[in-house]
């Protein structure tokens, strides 16, 4: 009978189907379950409230302010054209602009599309009142980053912006996502991990068209940590004002802790431009301007230090065998080195150590350079932290450069000449330093030989940041005391180069410098520390093409004197 055969056919077919069901639902079930979940579940992230940044006395430097944003929720949008036209009229835009913003910002049916952000409160109220006539339109309150002191603290704080491709690749494993707002410079970038907080969000179920069906879960976002910086906002403002039209940098730091009280770079920029993307024109100006306002000159400008470097030369000479501070060299306005003459900026006659420093006599320091020889100067310079990054908590910093015989032989395929030694001794030629490095050198001289690490973060979420251990400069106490004593003369002597810094009661010790630039006005420098007896602060002023060190001293005097009047130094 064929009926039996037919039964077997039915049985085998059903067995095959049953086996298929076991495979799909049993064996591969977990995979399909995962797929069905991903089909139906979406996350809407909620931005966390970013931590604020205060100065050392609790003055607010980076804050979050409320911003009224008009958004359209696509799945609730009624008649498109009508709504766009109506909304455009309320916002004072054209309907085309609204349509363009909608098209550009559209992600999916449930994510609100921003149409206008940061609108006036009055306008926001008008739109909110008409929400019933505008299906899908809503006014959202969002936190917007705001920097009360704007350009004054721009280089210290940096700014935040949408994450870029380079950062997303680098930071993905730390929980950063596309479209995240991250710190792009300054403390905002260095401390981003603390400031950003934790994103919260809604987990929603969507249908096959991606429309929101219901809320599955909600996790509130976590606040970011507030940060206290070492900066003194009042002092920073004084410095910024004193720099006037100059380009350059002003640094003040605590000689014992390395805390940076002033870190000012000019020209500066308005960080708000990066928050409000409508100001693209100004943004482009910043990016293309020859003045490079985005560059932090305190940490990223590597320039010849000029005579300020003579502190290093002096220290190296003091360590050299057979040198004594009482030895005098006669300055006749120039010195023959090899077959050419090296000039002094004046004719000083016989100069001992203290006179040489006071007058910044080049001839005296040529001699010291030969005594210390280039290797000794390079070693001392490295001990004072030159040629390497200071490690300040800012994302961008350059190392500067200290030349050496070996470098010149290998990189330039040239011999090291005595002329190079002479240039090295007065901080010209190949030497390149940053203003921050010079301030740190002064701090090391002032505090008894400790090379402190400059830092801008005082506390995170109320917890003090641990100081990094400082390296020691290989100079004994007497040698350092001698340098300190010498550095008082440029200020105290009426013939001294920094005499206009002789402010009653501060006891400033300083060294000036002028770095020649071919075809352009020279760079002006002054760096020092005070008070003389028990130094607490080190400072450095750099004026890019400022003409001379005199202008730098004027800027420094204005700030230090005004700060004294206000009792900032205490």
């Amino acid at each position, binding site marked *: 009978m064929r009926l039996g055969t*037919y039964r077997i056919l*039915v049985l085998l077919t059903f067995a095959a*189907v*049953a086996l*298929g069901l076991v495979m*799909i639902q049993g064996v591969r079930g977990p995979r399909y379950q995962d797929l069905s*979940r991903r089909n*139906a579940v979406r996350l809407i992230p909620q931005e966390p409230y970013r931590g604020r940044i205060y100065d050392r006395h609790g003055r607010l430097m980076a804050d979050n302010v409320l911003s009224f944003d008009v958004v359209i929720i696509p799945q609730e949008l009624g008649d498109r054209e009508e709504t766009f036209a109506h909304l455009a009229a309320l916002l004072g835009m054209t309907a085309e602009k609204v349509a363009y913003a909608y098209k550009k910002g559209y992600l999916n049916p449930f994510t609100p599309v921003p149409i206008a952000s940061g609108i006036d409160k009055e306008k926001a109220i008008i739109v909110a009142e008409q929400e019933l006539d505008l299906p899908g339109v809503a006014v959202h309150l969002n936190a917007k980053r705001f920097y009360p002191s704007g350009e004054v603290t721009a280089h210290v704080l940096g700014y935040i912006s949408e994450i870029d491709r380079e950062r997303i690749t680098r930071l993905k494993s730390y929980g950063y996502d596309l479209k995240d707002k991250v710190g792009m410079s300054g403390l905002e970038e260095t401390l981003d991990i603390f400031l950003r907080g934790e994103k919260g969000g809604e987990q929603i179920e*969507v*249908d096959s068209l991606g429309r929101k069906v219901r809320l599955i879960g909600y996790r509130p976002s976590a606040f970011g940590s507030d940060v206290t910086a070492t900066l003194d906002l009042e002092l920073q403002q004084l410095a910024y004002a004193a720099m006037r039209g100059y380009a350059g940098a002003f640094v003040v730091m605590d000689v014992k802790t390395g805390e940076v009280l002033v870190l000012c770079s000019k020209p500066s920029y308005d960080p708000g431009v990066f928050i409000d993307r409508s100001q693209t024109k100004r943004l482009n100006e910043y990016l293309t301007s020859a003045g490079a306002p985005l560059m932090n000159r305190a940490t990223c400008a590597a320039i010849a230090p000029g005579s300020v470097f003579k502190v290093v030369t002096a220290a190296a000479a003091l360590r050299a065998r057979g040198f004594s501070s009482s030895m005098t060299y006669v300055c006749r306005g120039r010195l023959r080195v090899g077959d050419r003459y090296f000039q002094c900026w004046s004719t000083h006659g016989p100069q001992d150590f203290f006179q040489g420093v006071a007058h910044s006599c080049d001839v005296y320091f040529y001699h010291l350079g030969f005594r210390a020889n280039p290797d000794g100067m390079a070693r001392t310079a490295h001990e004072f932290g030159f040629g390497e990054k200071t490690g300040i908590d800012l994302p961008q910093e350059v190392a500067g450069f200290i030349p050496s015989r070996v470098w010149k032989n290998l990189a330039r395929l040239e011999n090291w000449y005595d002329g190079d030694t002479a240039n090295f001794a007065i901080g010209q030629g190949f030497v390149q330093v940053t203003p921050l490095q010079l301030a740190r050198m002064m701090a090391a001289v002032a505090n008894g030989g400790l090379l402190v690490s400059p830092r801008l973060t005082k506390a995170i979420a109320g917890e003090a940041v641990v100081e990094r251990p400082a390296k020691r400069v290989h100079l004994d106490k007497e040698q350092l005391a001698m340098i300190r004593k010498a550095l008082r003369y440029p200020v105290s002597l009426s013939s001294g180069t920094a005499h206009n810094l002789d402010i009653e009661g501060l006891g400033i010790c300083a060294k000036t410098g002028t770095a020649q630039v071919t075809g352009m006005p020279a760079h002006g420098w002054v760096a020092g520390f005070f008070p003389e007896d028990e130094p607490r602060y080190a400072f450095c002023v750099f004026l890019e093409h400022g003409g001379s060190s005199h202008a730098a001293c004027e800027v420094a005097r204005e700030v230090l004197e005004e700060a004294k009047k206000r009792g900032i130094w205490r």
Partner: protein
Amino acid sequence: MAMRYRPHLVLLVALGLILAAGLLCLYSSCHQKGDFIRQDAFVKQALWLGIGLCGMFLMSHLDYRRLNFFMAPLYLVALVSLVFVLVSGRIIMGAQRWLTLGGVSLQPSELGKYVLVLVLAGHYSSKAVLGVHADAHSAGFIKACAVPLGLTLLPTLLVMAQPDLGTAIVYFFIFFSCAFLAQVRLRYLAGLTAAGLAGLPVFWHFLKGYQRLRLLVFLDPGSDPLGAGYTVIQSKIAVGSGRLLGKGFMSGTQGQLNFLAERHTDFIFSVWAEEWGLLGSLALLVLYGVLIFAILRIAETAKDMYGRLLACGVAAVLFFHAAVNVMMNMGMCPVVGLPLSLFSYGGSSLVFNLLALGVVLNIAKQK
């Protein structure tokens, strides 16, 4: 007293369970995000179920041998209505399958399935074919194959013109099942199969674009994930994500959130499998198996060749629909648009299936 195996009771129990599960599943699949969006469909199906059960009751009291007299007129009605549907039928889902009679939409191709069973059973049990051996084994090619194949091809070509590939294949399957069970010589059937296979390329040429696409998508669902492949991928996800115990009644995300297309008709099995899991889908499969084996048992004990072939034809129709539909939902065979008999939404299909089962019950009664 040992229980006697009474296949018609087994049939009724299995049928009852399948119909109940079907209504339950339809109720769920008529919902979307908690809204009863296709309430009319559910109510309609319940009405059709009532009509169908009445019809089944009537048919079980009508001597099946009388059907022989209605065979020729029914065949003509089926052919005419298929022609008529081609000319004036409403276009639903890209194909003309429905005929509207006084506000009620009918699907003549559903009628055609069981009319073909009637015609073939009548043909293979007629004295001219049976001869002295009381089966078609000794019959020549003309009587055993050519004539019944001709009778099959007429409605098949009309259905294919709709175009309804699935039903056309069902017609062929009915023909082969009847011929095979009527003891037609195997070499004739083998010859026909060989000829059919040789004609496949020509057949491919006549397929509509979307039908070709469906066949290609079956071979590689990933080739068109947002178009034709979407249906298959989503139904596989639905079936698979049910896992062992299912997501629970009315809780299938694939079905409730509209990821499944055609989820109250051809893909209703996915909804069932998603919400009731492997246990539920195997149970349903077993119910269909029990139903089909009960019908085959009734066929075995039928008192004449006509009754035997009628019952076998009904079993063949139900088996083919169940097997192909479930495999289609799992991506094991191409999407050919066959509903799951007695389970999917669709009045014509439900009523004709129940009528046919009424005939089977009558055959069981008369053994």
